[in-house]
């Protein structure tokens, strides 16, 4: 950046040739990723650390990013996962009583490349109209370099072909313990150890910390196991409930890792899913999924609860959705996205299987849908039935 604060020194290049100039920050080099936009006006740290953003370059549509810095408490996982960050204006200094450092320095440490001073609105309109595609941020390059970058982008693997879940999900069974004053820590789960409450198993496909926190908040004992665990690997923790987490990538890629999920459903243990977990439950039950043009990513996705006619503001982050027409008999659509009428939640008519496409755990976004976890806890405790 020059003395006037606006000299460009980096480019953002999209697979279809569209390129933007900007000012680079964060890591010196970035990865190729699928470019997506998120309309949240707060929560950049949660977004960057949400494992679901693995393999994606995130455009934040809000004008100013970095204003309140970063802090340990707002991490959605132990590290950043996004491949890059595109913003209109990056804060010069963080200002907030909880701030532990600047976004810029943190991204540098976390290895995430960023570009600022980009016309993010033009970029968002482009993505909206053309759909998501591969993109890369290149520092120290000019628009003249864009054709070379386009060539590289075209050679890179497609987002749907990569095994992101394999990269981000936990490798061993871990037990979560709440920390006084908020948050939680994890340790190796030990079989036979006394439960702190009703035990639930979280199938971790790249779970956000907030999901674990929401479960702990309701007094549940949480064991996290790899998402692709077999039923025996799940059952050994004697779960009273199973939760499928969110995660990155195309759900269709994971069809061969859903045996554990299918058996969980068959066992009659209440089985719930969030986001990718929602898509996987649908697929496990025979429905299909499809890719949305530009996905739903933001804090203001209105979801209608079919039974009550009530609308909740939900946080969403997904590029795939469940095909309503493909849903087998016995599955009922419980929630609909008011913006485009896509499936936002379903339940099994006769089994305790419930899933939502949105993020009831928020982080970032509104807490309006947190009743999802209350229901889950009640079902796990046998206080309610988990069907429709």
């Amino acid at each position: 950046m020059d003395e006037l604060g606006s000299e460009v020194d980096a480019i953002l290049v999209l697979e279809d040739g569209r390129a933007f100039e900007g000012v680079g920050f964060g890591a010196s080099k970035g990865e190729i990723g699928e470019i997506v936009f998120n309309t949240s006006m707060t929560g950049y740290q949660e977004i960057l650390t949400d494992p679901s953003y693995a393999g994606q370059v995130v455009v934040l549509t809000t004008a100013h990013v970095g204003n309140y810095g970063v802090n340990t408490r707002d991490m959605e996982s132990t590290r950043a996962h996004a491949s890059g960050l595109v913003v209109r204006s990056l804060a010069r200094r963080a200002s907030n009583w909880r701030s532990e450092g600047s976004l810029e320095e943190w991204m540098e440490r976390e290895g995430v490349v960023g570009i600022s001073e980009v016309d993010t609105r033009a970029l968002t309109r482009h993505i909206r109209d053309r759909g998501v595609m591969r993109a890369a941020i290149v520092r120290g390059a000019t628009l003249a370099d864009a054709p070379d970058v386009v060539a590289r982008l075209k050679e890179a693997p497609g987002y749907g072909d990569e095994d992101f879940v394999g990269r981000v999900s936990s490798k061993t069974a871990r037990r979560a313990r709440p920390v006084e004053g908020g948050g939680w820590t994890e340790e190796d789960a030990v079989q036979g150890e006394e439960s702190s409450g009703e035990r639930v198993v979280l199938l971790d496909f790249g779970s956000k910390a907030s999901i674990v926190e929401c479960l702990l908040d309701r007094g549940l004992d949480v064991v996290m196991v790899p998402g692709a665990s077999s039923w025996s690997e799940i059952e050994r923790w004697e779960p009273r409930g199973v939760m499928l987490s969110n995660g990155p990538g195309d759900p269709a890629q994971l069809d061969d890792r859903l045996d554990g999920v299918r058996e969980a459903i068959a066992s009659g243990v209440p089985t719930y899913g969030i986001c990718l977990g929602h898509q996987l439950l649908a697929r496990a039950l025979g429905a299909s999924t499809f890719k949305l043009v530009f996905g739903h990513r933001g804090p203001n996705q209105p979801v209608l609860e079919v039974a009550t006619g009530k609308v909740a503001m939900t946080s969403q982050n997904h590029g795939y959705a469940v095909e309503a027409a493909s849903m087998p008999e016995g599955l009922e659509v419980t929630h609909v996205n008011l913006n485009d009428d896509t499936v936002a939640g379903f339940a099994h008519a006769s089994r305790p299987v419930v899933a939502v496409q949105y993020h009831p755990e928020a982080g970032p976004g509104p807490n309006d849908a947190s009743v999802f976890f209350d229901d889950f806890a009640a079902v796990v405790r046998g206080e309610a039935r988990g069907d429709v």
Partner: protein
Amino acid sequence: MRKDINSICILGSGPIVIGQACEFDYSGTQAIRALRELGYRVILVNSNPATIMTDPEIADATYIEPLTPEFVERILERERPDAILPTMGGQTALNLAMELHARGTLDRLGVELLGTTPEIIARAEDRLIFRELIESLGMEQAESDVAHSLEEAWTILERTGFPSILRPSFTMGGTGGSIAYNRKEFEESIKWGLQQSPTSEVLIDESLLGWKEYELELMRDRLDNVVIICGIENIDPMGVHTGDSITVAPIQTLTDREYQDMRDAAIAIIRAVGIESGGCNIQFAVDPRTGRRVVIEMNPRVSRSSALASKATGYPIAKIAAQLAVGLTLDQIANDITGETKAAFEPVLDYVVTKIPRFNFDKFPQTQNSLTTQMKSVGEAMAIGRTFTESLLKALRSLEDGLIGLDVGEMPPEHADYDDRVEFFRADLTRPTPLRLLRTMDAMRAGVSIDDIHALTAYDPWFLHELERLLPVERALDAAGRGERELDGRLLFAAKRLGFGDQEIARRVGVTELDVRAKRAETGVKPVFKQVDTCAAEFDAVTSYFYSTYERGENEAVTSEERTIIILGGGPNRIGQGIEFDYCAVHAALALRDQGFRAVMINCNPETVSTDYDVSSQLYFEPLTFETVMAVIEQEQPEGVILQFGGQTPLRLAKALYDAGVRVLGSDAEAIDRTEDRELFNEIVTKLDLTQPEAATVLTLAEAEAVADDLGFPLLVRPSYVLGGLGMQIVHSIDDLRACFGRAAAVSGDNPVLIDRFLADAVEVDVDCIADGTDAVIGGIMEHIEEAGVHSGDSACVTPPYMLPESVLRTIREQTIALAKELDIVGLMNVQYAVRDHEVYILEVNPRASRTIPFISKATGRPLAALAARVMAGESLKDLGVTHELIPRHFSVKESVFPFDKFPEVDTLLGPQMLSTGEVMGIDTSFELAFLKAQIAAKNPPPAPGGRIFVSVRDEDKWSLVPVAKKLHEIGYKLVATSGTAKLLRAHNLPVELVNKVKDGQPHILDEIINGDIALIINTTTGSMSVKDSRSIRRAAINLGIPYFTTLAAAKAATAAIAKSRTSEPTVRAIQEYHS
């Protein structure tokens, strides 16, 4: 949707006052339209004629009647609506609904309240109930309690400590609110606050000075769906009324966790208060050191902030609140902007909005410009930019306060050491004033650290660091000014991107604004236009709402093939230029659209109807500066631009626009010059054989003194090219002249100061006229009640005239028509005359829409602004069927409303400088009853029979007082006077109680007033000594809410009105009936 109700009454907010301005015209108009679209019959009550909502075509039945329980009750009896929607008319409507409930009217007539209930209003507005509710939700409020007496206040103070925040209950705009730092201030403020509160309650709060302040706008429907429309962050920390604070949206300095916690709290509050179908706003304060959050207050209705939030996001809060009130739910209502999505969502912004309040401290030289918890601003400007600095600087230029950049300029000595520099700025930065942010930048320029500035101002460091971005660019521009670097495309782009205006760039570089424009054209540094779409581009938007910015990206505005006309609005409200001009601009837009034109609006006032995105074909929310107007013109390629409707604001741009080759519709620039330039005007006067008071133009005080010698006193001194009589004064002596000349010259700038012989005791007349270049037709003639010398915007007036002889009216008509033809007026023209001894003097001609256009349009039923727009677009008056003056059989009286209750230091005497913020209208079959209603609407009601009336008049008025006093005596009032006046009245066989003047010692008249023993005050005065002596009497009248008159003419009219009301009752009738 509710099928069990058919008709709904909407209560307006009455006259524009500080704290309650045209945002309620915007909300009310939206609500009425929404309800009528749903098929309901809508009855409107509002005393303010300057509003769009009171236009006959907006509601089904429109009552321009006083907003008092008595009048509204009569209207309800007459109309028998099923329900009242009281949440659209500000605190006035809410309080009125509560009174109607309390007196049993609603129950008796079976009228339901929509969108709220008396219980909800009490839970939100009664400070004690609200506090209990907040505590029951596990949330905090600042330590506080309610005092009903001074004694109780002292006890509470022991818990809350100094500084102490004081707010009376049930007032709007924080009337009576203040901060006390010591026991003396505390005692004064408590007494004042108890007085202001209709329930004699004052809330005493723990000080949250320096805390961050936030505001959330919420909507909730009957299915308990809640959405947050907008979060607003105040740059000014706690301690400055939110209406006086610079605010931004979206919230900038909260993490998601903190924002969501606040959002959850807000939702819990709206549920607990029980608003089931409508909107509210909730204010929070956050301790920047710890994050501790407290709830400040809630407004259970549409508010000033909802207007701001609607404009900031594109989400029409009032319209949707009205739809919710009749039972629709958020998911049933379409989002107009996207066309696809629903109202059940929360807008997201990809830009920054900044609002800056507009103050008028220049009108009240006696007051300090300190900002406190009592609102003092008279208007606001909003701007949209892609970044904070861009939106802030655009908002600053939108204020039309003469500011082109963030600086005051007074700097510490160059070699002062650091501590001295901090000390130099300390007072300016610790005391909140309208200039504090400007001084902050000066301090930054002087090298004061951001940490130190933060410590002094409590501005969040994020804002300060963003502002710091301006400094290197300023230095580069200054360097270009010194020839040390070039003003190249790179520097220009950097400056424009941060928000610098061409004028400031020009000032720093030492070139003209046109040079900067040329340089930008040469280097390709042009603005692009971006859309406001509620959704940060997630969906394709269909509504045409745009702002300019500088990006290396795309321009979203498309030049249309349709015939396009651009209308310039009036900018922020201020005394002298307010809602009246918005009224005109809106009518122009609607009329032109009706005629098939594409009407494009440029304006920057978020409170207005004109900045509602569906009033015009395309809205540019932009400052009304040459630079931004030209940018829109270049984008739109219009057939022409209309300047006549925005008051003085667009006229100031006229010359520059003409010079730039822009086609201005209507009267041409020559007409403006010929009326403003005294020499040219004299030529017209001579040519048309008119008479004007002897006058001269001067540039220096010496010249002025020579003129005074020649003409003699009294004289009227006024600057040229101003609106609202800024800097205008009547002088009675050479000392007066010397005292006021400097200010007039300063206001005038390079233009001369005008000095007229002042026509004492003349009657002033205002005439509005419409012309098409061939024909001219009188729109209406208004006779002022107060004698010449009171600004026409402050004087009460009546149409048709009630005292002027027909011969005089004939002369006035002839002269007006002749002027319109001589000036080739196309559109509107306003002329002011003075009449003395049957002689007609011409005072002033304005070739544009005047402040009285809405009043005259309502009085006559002829929509002058709409007609003028069509004339400007090429139609003839003949084609429009406008061939003769309409003279109604009923009388319409306009009365002005003043902000004196907000400025305790200010005297209430009227003069040639306009001080009123708003107006009311009384319509009736006789002048007296119309005048009476106007007085009641202006909160100057007649005293109860038998009341004691204090009279004290200047010598010139003594003889005229006698018949007035006699009449008052006859209709049963008791007269009270000090010795001089008493002697005179007794000499005329009138019984008078004698009372001491203040200087005669206690018990004196002030004691009687304070004790509530005086029901009406008639006090006229001249000469600085006696003005000073009687000032305390007038102030006491204001503070205690006692009706008063400061001119004998007004007292005389009021007396006649009261007498008339003893024999006949005022009519209650919809204006549609008057005009049918």
